[in-house]
């Protein structure tokens, strides 16, 4: 297998890059962060309606373009680089893959169609955002009722909840199985936006105090299977790893631009060898992470699903380490202005910390890989 982008993919990438450079500026991101807003409305409109990015990986039968993980990873990388404040990851990498993997045909037609058309933003209310298998952890309970179900429970943190037109709620049935329910806006749920350090990605809590839903709102095709969960989470983690890679590249780019101009002791900071070596080491880390992200993307669906999951776990490890390192170097190499609100490094830095904990920190992903490499299913 040779890894390279096709001419079509290259074109998608270049146009996305050009678009984001113009529309997703540092100023645009800051406007959202400083206002505590849920997202950049104009940017999201362009992405979802005009550019059709949400349709990219959705099968053609549901109104999508039928392209794959590589295209989505490319776009995630680029939105990550600009810290674009849009519910793209939650819609395209959390909600859509979960519906595709576990949804009924009806649900797919309805929701994947709406996502592909850019009509809705969607998210998933995972029980615990910080674990590697968040679909297994749910405290929301679904009790059968006359017309459908009653949902009860609280979810501490849901990404992009305030902006989402649709939230998918995994909930535990009486028999212990997990079912998936959809809630549109104002369907009885209580949403409380949280004040977060990383203002580029909004989080809110979700409370369901006995919310009655119709049977049609249950969207899984007979319970969430392990294979469906694995497939959805692979996409979520791959997209996140790509975004983290992009944010690392973005932090390095910002830093390179600064140190090429800033003069100390009569020389640009960029001319000091110790600084050069540290920037070069970031390139090494980027090369590793980018190779694994796009290698895993190219294999996804072709290789064995377990093998793909391991590669994607590895990509998360490399990308999480890299993103933090790139962001901390951005602060350090900016010197005095590096820890001010006015310059960009702190935005990359807070995003790095918040992303590292999402869907399993590095140690959890390494443990999964070890369980497979040692063939013992986990530490004895």
């Amino acid at each position, binding site marked *: 297998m040779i890894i390279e982008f096709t001419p079509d993919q290259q074109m998608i990438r270049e146009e996305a890059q050009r678009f984001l450079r113009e529309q997703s500026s540092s100023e645009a991101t800051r406007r959202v962060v400083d206002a505590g807003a849920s997202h950049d409305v104009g940017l999201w409109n362009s992405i979802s309606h005009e550019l059709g990015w949400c349709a990219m990986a959705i099968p053609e039968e549901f109104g999508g373009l039928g392209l794959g993980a590589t295209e989505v990873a490319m776009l995630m990388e680029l939105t990550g680089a600009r810290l674009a404040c849009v519910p793209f990851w939650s819609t395209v990498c959390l909600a859509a893959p979960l519906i595709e993997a576990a949804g009924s045909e009806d649900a797919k037609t309805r929701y994947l169609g709406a996502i592909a058309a850019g009509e809705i933003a969607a998210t998933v209310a995972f029980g*615990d*955002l*910080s674990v590697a298998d968040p679909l297994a952890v749910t405290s929301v309970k679904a009790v059968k009722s006359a017309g459908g179900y009653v949902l009860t429970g609280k979810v*501490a*943190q849901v990404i992009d909840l305030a902006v989402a037109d649709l939230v998918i709620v995994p909930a535990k049935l009486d028999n212990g199985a997990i079912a998936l329910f959809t809630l549109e806006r104002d369907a009885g749920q209580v949403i409380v936006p*949280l*004040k*977060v*350090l*990383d203002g580029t990605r909004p*989080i809110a809590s979700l409370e369901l105090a006995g919310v009655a839903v119709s049977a049609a709102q249950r969207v899984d095709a007979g319970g969430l299977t392990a294979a469906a969960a694995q497939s959805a989470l692979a996409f979520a983690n791959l997209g996140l790893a790509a975004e983290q890679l992009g944010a690392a590249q973005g932090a390095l780019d910002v830093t390179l631009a600064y140190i090429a101009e*800033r*003069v*100390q*002791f*009569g*020389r*640009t900071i960029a*001319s*000091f060898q*110790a*600084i050069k070596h540290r920037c070069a080491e970031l390139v090494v880390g980027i090369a590793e992470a980018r190779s694994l992200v796009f290698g895993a993307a190219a294999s996804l669906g072709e290789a064995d699903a377990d093998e793909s999951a391991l590669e994607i776990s590895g990509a998360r490890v490399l990308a999480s380490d890299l993103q*933090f390192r790139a962001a*901390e170097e951005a*602060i*350090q190499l900016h*010197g*005095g202005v*590096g*820890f*001010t*609100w*006015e310059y960009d490094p*702190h935005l990359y*830095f*807070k995003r790095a*910390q*918040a992303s*590292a*904990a*999402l869907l399993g*920190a590095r*140690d959890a992903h390494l443990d999964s890989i070890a369980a497979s490499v040692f063939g013992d299913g986990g530490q004895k």
Partner: protein
Amino acid sequence: MSDLDTFRAEVREWMASHLTGKFAELKFRGGSGEGDALPELRKEWERELAAGRWTCPGWPREHGGRGLSVAEQVAFQEEYSRAGGPGRMGHIGEGLMGPTLIAFGTEEQKKRFLPGILNGTEFWCQGYSEPSAGSDFGNIKTRAKLDPVSGDWIVSGQKVWTSLAHLSDWIFVVARCEEGSVGRNGLIFLLMPLAQSGVEIHPIKQIGGGAEFNSVFFDDARANARDVVGQPGDGWKIAMALLGFERGISTLGQQMSFQQELDLIVEISKENGSDRSPAIRQRVAYAWTGLRAMRYLAMRVLSDDQSAETRREALTYKYQWSNWHRDLGRLAMDVLKMDANVVSHDPRRERLQQMFLFARADTIYGGTNEIQLNIIAEQGLGMPREPRGKL
């Protein structure tokens, strides 16, 4: 009980009976990342300390201090921090300005300025850094021109990273008083009141949302003729001597506060199950080890040990503590997991979040990591100096 134990007990007792009532709110506040928190109450606390003669306890008795030994000063710092004593608003006056005036000031200057520091009524800040200078301290562009009529100095330029300027009364300023001079020559050390036209203070919002630092703009601001320390041209010498006065006694108090942060991390990890992660456990143990090593390094530096090893290794202290603290911040967030990102009113979490963010400044201000490593290599190991460029 040794004399030192008796002394410790006295400090403990005083803190317990005074850091209470309205001052209880100050416990553990005003530290990393929130140097500008609760300023009025903390100034009142300075006056409370003064009333107990606990400001400037290391100053000589003839200048109003207690003339404490190094060991006693260490004990005071430790007990102060252990009791949760808040970040000291008077630190620059007590630790830097006072000792500098005692060494280099005129009798008149001592008489005028020392009491305000001792009494916790006048607060000082430091005018060293400049926007274009950064780590290159010799590259000072702020100018001081002699007014031949009054003998006063007229100052124009900009200082930056001036900690708590917006809450201070006076600033000491290093400025260029000889036209055309470069580097370390031709500098003057001036004392200037901040409340005057010609001085503008702009707070700099920092990574955690606070604004401890400021830019201070001078536009024909005035320093009185009698407020020059040393002679015009002595600025570099005085400025360097001032930096040397902070002999590191406060570092042991700082370490006590580090220990408290580490204790908090352990406490929270036991609550939220992070203590079951082998990697977290090892990182906590490693942090414990590093802190213990710093403690002994500080004790070596505070001794009179003049061995080549101790003098060389003393150069590493800033690098050590700042990087240790930076790593501790990351550990704290990893222990908090997704909660790390959410602002709550849990004061423990708030303290760790602010610490995490502001520790990013630790490796930059007061000499960046890169400058520290240059110093260790060049002064400690005698390796070749970095060549200056010509841009």
